């Protein structure tokens, strides 16, 4: 199955190396569940110190903070008795963030510049984005390890362009064009262009599941662990089916929120003091209905992606339940609201736990081998050179 994937999928980086020879799945393979042992109080201390130092250093420490955060979360993710590890260098992350800040400044400044420059900037940003995305995949996977063996990303750069450029041309460019045509114009002119916007919107709806499937396939089918390879066998039509259900839930929640606004409007017109008393209640209710949508969408998407991913034919399964995720979202929302944000580290830990605990894997963790190019030492200096910076996409 894995070799089929190699032959038929374009963009495979064949310089990567020898065909994976993962063992056949043994009949009585144990099922290992991922366990997350992080705790909110423990992470709170890390988080608050990170925040203070980041403020004090005007953001420079944020790269070190990110490394410490990732090491905490990786290091508390257990599989078959061992934990994961993150090796990224803070300096690479810092460089990546500075570059990202420069790009963002360019993008923000462009509307004020002459049209010619604005177009040049937009085109350049679209042109380098796939490259940045590809680098950040290599950085993230290449700096993650389990039991001393590193993960890898073997997707070709061309694959990244094949993924993003059509989306940019079909959806992003028309959308930007539309905005440019419409901003500042009187409503009568805006009305003329409305069908165009609906067309773009329709195109987005129809193409998004395809894009999402292609993105996940690019990220998963070309991922590797040591000499072993991951595979991704989800079908496009399953992606469409899943997205349709999510869209229905989305419209449902819009309807409920709209209903709420309607009721609120009626109350507002009749009885102002009551309106103000009820306003916080309405806001919280709005936040909760948003939580339903987010919980549903993330549950479906996680189960979809991971249940169709396997490592060397050893299947991964994701069985996260909506009710568990929803509970976590609700408590997180209310907790963060009432503590003015201080609940955040507890919320982050709770998210991680509910999402990770649903993942399990049937296979033998003892049999994997590191890729030849990776075994250069714990410091992995060649990674530092090659993956000079990480933009964190």
């Amino acid at each position, binding site marked *: 199955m894995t070799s089929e994937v190699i032959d038929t999928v374009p963009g495979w980086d064949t310089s990567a190396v020898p065909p994976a020879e993962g063992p056949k799945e043994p009949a009585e393979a144990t099922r290992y569940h991922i366990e997350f*042992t*992080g*705790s909110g109080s*423990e992470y*709170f*201390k*890390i988080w*608050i*110190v990170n*925040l*203070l130092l980041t*403020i004090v250093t005007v953001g420079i420490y944020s790269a*070190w903070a990110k490394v*410490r955060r990732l*090491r*905490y979360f990786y*290091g*508390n993710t*257990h599989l078959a*008795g*061992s*934990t994961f*590890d993150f090796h990224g260098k803070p300096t690479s992350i810092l460089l990546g963030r500075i570059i990202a800040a420069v790009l963002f400044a360019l993008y923000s400044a462009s509307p*004020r510049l002459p049209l010619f420059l604005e177009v040049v900037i937009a085109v350049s940003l679209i042109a380098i984005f796939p490259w940045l995305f590809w680098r950040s995949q290599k950085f993230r996977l290449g700096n993650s390890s*389990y*039991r*001393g*063996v590193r993960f890898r990303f073997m997707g070709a750069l061309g694959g990244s362009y094949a993924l993003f450029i059509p989306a940019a041309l079909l959806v992003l460019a028309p959308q930007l064009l539309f905005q440019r045509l419409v901003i*500042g114009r*009187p*409503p009568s002119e805006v009305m003329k262009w409305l069908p165009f916007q609906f067309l773009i919107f329709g195109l987005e709806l129809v193409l998004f599941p395809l894009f999402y499937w292609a993105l996940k396939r690019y990220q998963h089918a070309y991922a590797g662990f*040591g000499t072993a390879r991951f595979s991704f066998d989800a079908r496009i039509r399953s992606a469409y089916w899943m997205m349709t259900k999510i869209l229905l839930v989305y419209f449902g929640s819009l309807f409920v929120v709209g209903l709420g606004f309607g009721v609120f409007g009626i109350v*507002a*017109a*009749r009885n*102002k003091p009551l309106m*103000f008393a009820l*306003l916080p209640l309405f*806001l919280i209710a*709005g*936040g909760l209905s*948003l939580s339903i949508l987010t919980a549903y969408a993330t549950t479906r998407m996680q189960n979809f992606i991971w249940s169709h991913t396997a490592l060397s034919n050893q299947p991964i399964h994701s069985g996260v339940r909506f009710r568990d995720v929803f509970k976590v979202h609700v408590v*997180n*929302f209310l907790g*963060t*609201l009432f503590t003015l*944000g*201080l609940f*955040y580290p507890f919320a*982050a830990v709770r998210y991680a736990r509910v999402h990770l605990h649903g993942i399990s894997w049937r296979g033998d*963790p*003892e*049999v*994997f*081998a*590191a890729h030849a190019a990776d*075994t*250069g*030492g*714990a410091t992995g200096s060649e990674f530092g050179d090659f993956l000079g910076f990480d933009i964190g996409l």
Partner: protein
Amino acid sequence: MDRVPVLHFDGRTTRSERGWVAVEGDDLVLTVGGSERRFPTRSVSFTPAYARAPARIGFEDGATCEIGSADDYNRLRAAARRGTGWAERLETRWRYALGALVLVVACGVGGYVWGIPLAGEVLARKAPPWVVEAIGRSSRQQLETLGFGPPRELLTDEERHVTARFAALLPPDAPHYVIEFRTWHQRANAFALPDGHIVVTDGMEQFARGHEDALLFVLGHEMGHLYYRHSLQSLTRASLLSGAAAYLFGDVSSALAVLAGGLGSLHYSREFETQADDYGIALLRSHGISTAPAADLFDRIEASGGNAGPQKSRPTTASGPHRVDFPGYLSTHPATSERTAKLRSGNPVPPEIDPAEPRRAPVPADPQ
């Protein structure tokens, strides 16, 4: 020291092997699979210790060892004289965490109260003229879509009179300005665009008819906005604030981030309105003009139920005239009652007339 049991991974495969590690002098001795290897302690990497996860030490050749027990790990670190790093020490003791919390909250409050406003002021002052003009021009272009008529070219006598009086009041450091009188379906409003154009609507003129001093205050208030460059400041403050809110709350809930940014911006907006009020008050009272008529003007506008006074948006009450004081936190302007109270108190008092003394007509210049 005693040996510490470890789980060894050679870095080339994921196969685990039980082994032992001990510190002898400056070396770390690793005993695994029957063989013994030595590494200088300083070449070994130690991870921070987490409460419920194994700690890890890493060797130069890519091998790692997982140590399951926190006690064992601390003993090992102590023996190797590789204590916890400063960051780890800060991150594991509650007293540092709570101290950090206090400092972060202080920075947050300080940033909101002083930092962002200061940044806004500096940026607004440094803004190049073309930026200011561009914003003003695009705002003016939008006026037509919002229902405003074009600026009138032929002014009435009243309009000319109030314009002249206003010009006479202004100090030399007042920014350049142009007063525009526009129709807006009889609704009362007045605002200042960043490029110096002050717009007064026909509705406002109607409410102020016969009370020129009230209109003078309105113009002074708008001049206050221009003087302090409030539109630019509010733009920069809003962006900085929403950026901070997104950073703090974005991961948990974008709704929260927007809410926080929005409420924070509303407070800033009320600050600006108060500042503009103060400017107008100072302008009028320094010339001995009372601001009480302005207070009456605001009361009239609000009582009639239309868009009252120089404000951006007020939901009209569907059930007819209503005196409603919006709770302060929700409004872009401080509550009207607060403003009118300030406008009515502290006005220059006309000289006391003693009822006992006969009223004397003003003495003309000596006719000789």
